[in-house]
């Protein structure tokens, strides 16, 4: 299982893997926003956390369709399904590797983009912490979509459409936790706890459903 983790990590970081494209896309999305709403620094500081969250959500959806598709194309998916360890565990490990390769760079890149958005230190810290807690949930939900669409010839766009409605609660509680941290009267912990609960919940549901979908789509 550890070997699988490092194999996936190497594959996605090295040439042709496309892990860095996610970060690049994240930066582009965030950089486009000031052109759209204008360079008003106060406004940017107010909507900054929401922009960072939406950018991170879209960027982590970007690479999801490759989660199982490359393995299916070269046949290693069948090997993973036939081996002794349960498929459930393999899916979980693959999700973890995918998150380390694409989700973690987004979290690391978010403070710098926060500076572009004229956010203060508290807001940047809160955004980073909530992204760290929330992006795994997006990966787990996305694993279901990727497993469902693995048999499709052109599943990429469909994965995004199927996954986005389910990822909305993550976005809602992530952004509301950040705003609770910035604005004084609202407490930070309740929305943050719910965010962590969502991540844990989908950490269970996601691999189970993804493993079931993979097994059924393999004839």
């Amino acid at each position: 299982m550890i070997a699988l983790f490092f194999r996936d990590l190497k594959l996605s970081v090295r040439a042709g893997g496309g892990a860095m494209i996610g970060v690049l896309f994240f930066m582009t999305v965030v950089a486009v926003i000031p052109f759209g709403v204008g360079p008003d620094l106060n406004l940017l500081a107010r909507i900054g956390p929401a922009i960072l969250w939406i950018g991170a959500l879209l960027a982590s959806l970007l690479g999801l369709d490759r989660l199982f598709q490359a393995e299916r194309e070269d046949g290693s998916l069948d090997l993973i399904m036939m081996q002794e360890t349960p498929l459930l565990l393999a899916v979980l490990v693959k999700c973890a590797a995918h998150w380390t390769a694409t989700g973690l760079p987004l979290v690391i890149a978010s403070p710098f983009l926060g500076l572009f958005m004229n956010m203060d230190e508290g807001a940047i810290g809160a955004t980073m912490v909530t992204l760290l807690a929330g992006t795994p949930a997006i990966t787990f939900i996305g694993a279901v979509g990727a497993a469902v669409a693995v048999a499709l010839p052109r599943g990429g766009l469909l994965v995004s459409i199927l996954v986005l409605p389910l990822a909305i609660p993550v976005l809602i509680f992530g952004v509301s936790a950040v705003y609770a941290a910035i604005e004084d009267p609202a407490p930070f912990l309740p929305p943050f706890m719910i965010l962590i609960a969502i991540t844990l919940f989908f950490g269970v549901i996601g691999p189970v459903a993804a493993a079931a979908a993979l097994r059924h789509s393999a004839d």
Partner: protein
Amino acid sequence: MSESSLAIRKFSDLANPTRFLALADRVLPWLAALTLLVFAVGLWLSFATEGDYQQGETVRIMYVHVPSAWLSMMCYTVMAISALGTLVWRHPLADVSARAAAPIGACFTFLALVTGSLWGKPMWGTWWVWDARLTSVFVLFLMYLGLIALNRAMDDPSRSARVSAVLILVGFVNIPIIKFSVEWWNTLHQPASVIRLDGPTIDPEFLRPLIVMAIAFTLLFFTLHIAAMRNEIWRRRVASLRRQAARNAGREQLSP
């Protein structure tokens, strides 16, 4: 033989599509006639009862809005049960049922959203607000459309059924959120006023047409659902006959 195993055998008898078609042919005209009758009574009641002292005539939107909103959730529940039937019991009609229910559910959800929007403009002063109930129903609508898109993307019906069954079950998380969104969050949308522990808080003047319309909408759903399932079975038969014909045509060309 015990009663329950008899019921199970009756249920699995329906797994034969031909038997289901025979039953559907017998049931459908009656169901359609009953639907028409209840709709006639419901519509007459809706227009014959008095308007609200505050909302005036616009209260009649409720008689369409509330039943279609109920049905949008019930339809997803039917799909989730069918998805369970596909995955657990491998019931051959379950995937037909889930596939046929998706467009109907999308239509009812769309109807609920549109009538709610038309009702919101005079009452709340806005077409749309991003409150919990409205947003979660909108998410439900998006999920219906995503499921329809997924069903259409795969050409092998049995495989697409099993895969979309997984997705239906994951998406079922949304249904309790919709149901309780008006209680968990403080929303502009009013809390439940018909199905409550302490009895309905709505005046009988409005409750009577509402109940009749709800029954009419439910009957309409089952009529459409059975008809759609029948069409789906026929469509699959036509497709397999065409495939057979194409195969035979190829063989005849090769043989001489």
